[in-house]
C-alpha cells in the first residue's frame, strides 16, 4: 500500500482551517447513531472521549487502571507549551512550530506540527475553563516559565503537577459525559486485539482484568490512545502498567508502525540503585534552569568519591568539570535532552561518573542558592527536592543531587495521516501512541500539548469525516471476525498459562530491557544492533517455552497481565532494532555511532534519511517491510542542530 499522509494543499498557516472546512460533517441528529470506541483515557483518550460525547456520539472508553483518573499522563510534572505569547517575548505559532520541527531534528511533518502549534492556545483556554488551577502571577493572570531550553517563556504549569491537573480536567469532562450517559466507561479492562470487518476497524476484544472475561465490543470507529512503549526497556520513568499491547496488536492487524527506534532518554532521573529496582523516577528538567551539571575532572577523584573518602563539597572548583557549560558555552546546562543524556553517558564511560555505581553525574544547586537564597530555590523546586530526599535520603540543599539518564518517552508509534487515521481505515491513534509530531526528539512540555490537541481539537473533526462516509448500521459482535479474534486471544492466554516453565515474566523482561538499553539505548552501532536482534529473537523463543505463570484466566491475575504485555514487548523490541539498523544516521534520540562529527556530535544525513520509516507486518517470523514517507520541508531550512 502506498502511504498517503493526506496533507492538505495550500499555505502552511491555512491548511488546518481549510481542511476543517472541507471535512464532511455528521448531521447533529445522526451523531447518536454512531458508536466510537476509545481505548485509553489519558490526556489524549480522555479528551477525545469527552469531546465525542459532547458532540453526541455514543462512546465506549477503556482503561486498564481502576479509574480513568490514574492514566500515566498524571505523572507529568513540568508543564505544557502553548504559543500564547502572554509574556510578549516574541513567541508565535510559527516560532513554536519552528522550535518543535528543529527540536525534532527535522524528522516530523511540517503540516502536523504547525497545526499543533496553532491549536496550542485553545488547549490552555479549555483547561482554564474546566477549572485547572494553573500557576498565576500576583495580578491574577497566568504565569509562564521557560522550559527545556526554549528561548521564550511559553510553558504553563500547575506547581510540579501539571500532568495531574490537566488529566483531572479531562477526567472531569469525561465524568460529566459518563453521568450524561454518552460515555460508557470500562475501567480495569485491557484491549487485547482490534477487530477488522471488511478491512475496516470495527471493534476490539478485551479482557476484564477482575473476572478474566474475554469480550468483544463493536463500533463504527476505534481510537487508540494507549500511551508510549518505553517499558520495553523494563526500567523507565513510565508507570508500571504502560504497555505496547494495543499498538502492537493494531500493527499485527495491518497498521504501520512508524519510527519505532526513536526513544527519548531523559537526562535528569534518579540513578539506578541496585539490581532489585522496578522503576525509575524522573526529576523535572526544570531543575536544569538553576542546577549546574558536573563530574570530577579526574577519574581518581571520582574513585575517592565512590569509596566515600571525600564528599562532593570537598572537591575544589578547579577540579570540577562542568562539562555541559564547557562543551556548549551558549546553551550550557540547558542543551536538549538527547545532548545532555549522551554527554552524561560519555563522562561516565570515561570513568568519571559518581555515586555507588559510577553511573551518575551531579546536579548542583550550591551556586543558585548562594545567588538567589535558599527561599527562592525552595519556592521553585521545594517539592522536587523533597521527593528526591524521600527516595535517596540525601538533602539537595546541602549536597548535589545525583542524576542519570533514563528511558522516558517514545516518539515512535503507530503511523497516522494528517487526520490521525492509521493505515487501517476507521482506526485512529492519538497521543503518545502515535508517531506524529515530535520527529526524532520531543521537546519538554510538548507531549501534554500534543495529547490534548489530538483529543480535544483534532479527532473530533477528523473522525466525523470518516463516519460521514460509513453506514450507521449497528455492527454485531456475532460477526465471525469477532469470534475469530476472541478465539485467538483465548488461545494466546491458554498457551501462556500452560507453558509452566521455570523463569518468571520479570526475569525475561529484565533481560530484554538490558539488551535494549545496552544495544539500542543512548548510542547504537551496527554490530551491537545485529547482536541485539539475535538475542531478542532467542529470548522470545525461550519465553514461549520457559515462562512461568501462575493461576488461571478467570480471576484477577497480574502475572498473566504482565505476561501478555511482555510477549508483545519482545516482538516490538525486535522491530525497534530493525528500525535502528536501517537508520544509518544520527538524529534526535537516535545516535548511530557510525554517524558523528569529528567532535563526537550527532550527524544527520538529510540526503538519505529525510523520511519517516513506516513498518508493515508481514507475518510471524517474517521480516517487516519498510515503507518510506518522504518528508518535505517548504517552510523551514534544514540545518544541523548546534548548541555550542
Amino acid at each position: 500500500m502506498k502511504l498517503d499522509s493526506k496533507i492538505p494543499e495550500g499555505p502552511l498557516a491555512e491548511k488546518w482551517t481549510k481542511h476543517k472546512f472541507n471535512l464532511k460533517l455528521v448531521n447533529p441528529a445522526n451523531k447518536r447513531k454512531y458508536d466510537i470506541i476509545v481505548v485509553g483515557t489519558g490526556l489524549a483518550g480522555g479528551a477525545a472521549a469527552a469531546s465525542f460525547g459532547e458532540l453526541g456520539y455514543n462512546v465506549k472508553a477503556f482503561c486498564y487502571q481502576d479509574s480513568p483518573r490514574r492514566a500515566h499522563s498524571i505523572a507529568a510534572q513540568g508543564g505544557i507549551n502553548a504559543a500564547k505569547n502572554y509574556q510578549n517575548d516574541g513567541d508565535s505559532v510559527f516560532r513554536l512550530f519552528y522550535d518543535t520541527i528543529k527540536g525534532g531534528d527535522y524528522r516530523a511533518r511540517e503540516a502536523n506540527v504547525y497545526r499543533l502549534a496553532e491549536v496550542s492556545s485553545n488547549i490552555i483556554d479549555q483547561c482554564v475553563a474546566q477549572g485547572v488551577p494553573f500557576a498565576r502571577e500576583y495580578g491574577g493572570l497566568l504565569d509562564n516559565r521557560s522550559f527545556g531550553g526554549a528561548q521564550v517563556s511559553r510553558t504553563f504549569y500547575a506547581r510540579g503537577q501539571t500532568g495531574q491537573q490537566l488529566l483531572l480536567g479531562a477526567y472531569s469532562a469525561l465524568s460529566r459525559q459518563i453521568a450524561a450517559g454518552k460515555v460508557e466507561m470500562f475501567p480495569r479492562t485491557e484491549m487485547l486485539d482490534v477487530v477488522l470487518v471488511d478491512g475496516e476497524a470495527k471493534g476490539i476484544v478485551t479482557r476484564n482484568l477482575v473476572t478474566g472475561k474475554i469480550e468483544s465490543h463493536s463500533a463504527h470507529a476505534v481510537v487508540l490512545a494507549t500511551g508510549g512503549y518505553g517499558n520495553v526497556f523494563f526500567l523507565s520513568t513510565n508507570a508500571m502498567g504502560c504497555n505496547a499491547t494495543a499498538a502492537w496488536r493494531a500493527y499485527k492487524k495491518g497498521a504501520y508502525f512508524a519510527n519505532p527506534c526513536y526513544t527519548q532518554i531523559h537526562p535528569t532521573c534518579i540513578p539506578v540503585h541496585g539490581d532489585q529496582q522496578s522503576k525509575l523516577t524522573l526529576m523535572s528538567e526544570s531543575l536544569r534552569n538553576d542546577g549546574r551539571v558536573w563530574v570530577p575532572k579526574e577519574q581518581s577523584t571520582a574513585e575517592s568519591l565512590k569509596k566515600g573518602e571525600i564528599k562532593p563539597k570537598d572537591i575544589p572548583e578547579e577540579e570540577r568539570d562542568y562539562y555541559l557549560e564547557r562543551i556548549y558555552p551558549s546553551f550550557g546546562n540547558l542543551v536538549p535532552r538527547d545532548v545532555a543524556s549522551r554527554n552524561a553517558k560519555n563522562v561516565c564511560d570515561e570513568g568519571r561518573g559518581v555515586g555507588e555505581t559510577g553511573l551518575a553525574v551531579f546536579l548542583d544547586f550550591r551556586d543558585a542558592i548562594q545567588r538567589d537564597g535558599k527561599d527562592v530555590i525552595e519556592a521553585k523546586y521545594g517539592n522536587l527536592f523533597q521527593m528526591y530526599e524521600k527516595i535517596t535520603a540525601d538533602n539537595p540543599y546541602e549536597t548535589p543531587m545525583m542524576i542519570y539518564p533514563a528511558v522516558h518517552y517514545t516518539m515512535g508509534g503507530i503511523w497516522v495521516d494528517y487526520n490521525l487515521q492509521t493505515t487501517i481505515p476507521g482506526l485512529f491513534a492519538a497521543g503518545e501512541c502515535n508517531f506524529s509530531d515530535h520527529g526524532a526528539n520531543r521537546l519538554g512540555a510538548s507531549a501534554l500539548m500534543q495529547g490534548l490537541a489530538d483529543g480535544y481539537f483534532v479527532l473530533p473533526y477528523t473522525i466525523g469525516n470518516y463516519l460521514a462516509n460509513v453506514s450507521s448500521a449497528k455492527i454485531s459482535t456475532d460477526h465471525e471476525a469477532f469470534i475469530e479474534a476472541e478465539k485467538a486471544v483465548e488461545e494466546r492466554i491458554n498457551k501462556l498459562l500452560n507453558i509452566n516453565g521455570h523463569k518468571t515474566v520479570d526475569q525475561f523482561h529484565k533481560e530484554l530491557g538490558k539488551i535494549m538499553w545496552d544495544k539500542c539505548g543512548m548510542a547504537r552501532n551496527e554490530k551491537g544492533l545485529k547482536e541485539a536482534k539475535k538475542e531478542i529473537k532467542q529470548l522470545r523463543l525461550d519465553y514461549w517455552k520457559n515462562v512461568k505463570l501462575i493461576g488461571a484466566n478467570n480471576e484477577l491475575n497480574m502475572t498473566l497481565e504482565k505476561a501478555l504485555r511482555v510477549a508483545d514487548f519482545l516482538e516490538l523490541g525486535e522491530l525497534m532494532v530493525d528500525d535502528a539498523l536501517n537508520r544509518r544516521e544520527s538524529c534526535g534520540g537516535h545516535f548511530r555511532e557510525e554517524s558523528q562529527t569529528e567532535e563526537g556530535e550527532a550527524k544527520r544525513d538529510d540526503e538519505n534519511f529525510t523520511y519517516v520509516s513506516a513498518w508493515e507486518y508481514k507475518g510471524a517470523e517474517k521480516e517487516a517491510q519498510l515503507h518510506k514517507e518522504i518528508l518535505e520541508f517548504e517552510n523551514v531550512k534544514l540545518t544541523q542542530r548546534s548548541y555550542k
Partner: protein
Amino acid sequence: MEKGHSHTLKVWRQKDAISKGEFKTYKIDNVSTGSSFLEMLDILNEKLLEKGEDPIHFDHDCREGICGTCSLYINGRPHGPDRLVTACQLHMRSFKDGETITIEPWRAKSFPVIKDLIVDRSAFDRIIQAGGFVSVRTGSVEDANAIPVAKKNADEAMDAAACIGCGACVAACKNASAMLFVSAKVSQLALLPQGKVERKQRALKMVAQMEEEGFGACTNTGACSAECPKGIELTHIARLNREYINASLTAEEK
C-alpha cells in the same frame, strides 16, 4: 553497600471478593534499605512465583506518589508510617531491621476488597460524576486570561486539587467518611470563578452521592487529614460544609 534488612510480613490474603480472607506470614531477607516498599513486595512476589505460589496482589502504577493507585494499610496506617508519603514512595529505611510489618487493604464498606490488597474505589468516580466538574464543552470557551484569578485563590485551589483520589482518608476514618475527598473537589471549584455557577448543585449532588455510596458521616476527628499523603487540610471540609448549608438554604436554586 550496607547489608539488607530482614522482615516478617503479615499480609492479608483474600482470593476474591466473595472468599473469606486471612493473614498469612512471610519472611523476607536482605532487603536493601534503599528499596521502596513496593519493590520489597516485588521481590517477595518473585520468590512466591518461583515457589509456585500466587503472588500478593496489590494496586500500583506510577510509583511516584501521584496516580493514587497504591493503597496499602501498613502497620495500622494508610500508606504506612511516614507523613505525606504514599505507599509507593515509602522506603524500607523507614523500618527497623527485624521489624514485623502488617499489610492490609483499605477497610471500608464502600471500598470492597477485590483480591488480596486490592479494593474497588469506583465509588469515588461516581461521586465526581455527580458534579465534580465545570460544565464546559470543548471549544466553547473564551481566552484563558479573560478571567483573572487572585493568586491566593489559585494557590488555594491548587492545594485542594492536589488530591490523588487514593482513599487513604476513608481508610483512616473510623466512620469511613469520604468528606476530605469530596471537600477537596468542591473547594477547588468553589475557589475559582469558573466553578461558581454550579457551586450549589455541585455541593448538594456530590454529598448526596457520597451518602448513597455508604460512606460514613464526618465527626471531625481529623484522622483523614493527618493521614492524607497530599496534606489536604480540614479547612476544605469547613468550606464544603459552608457550601452545603448555603446550597440547602437556597434550595429552590438547585
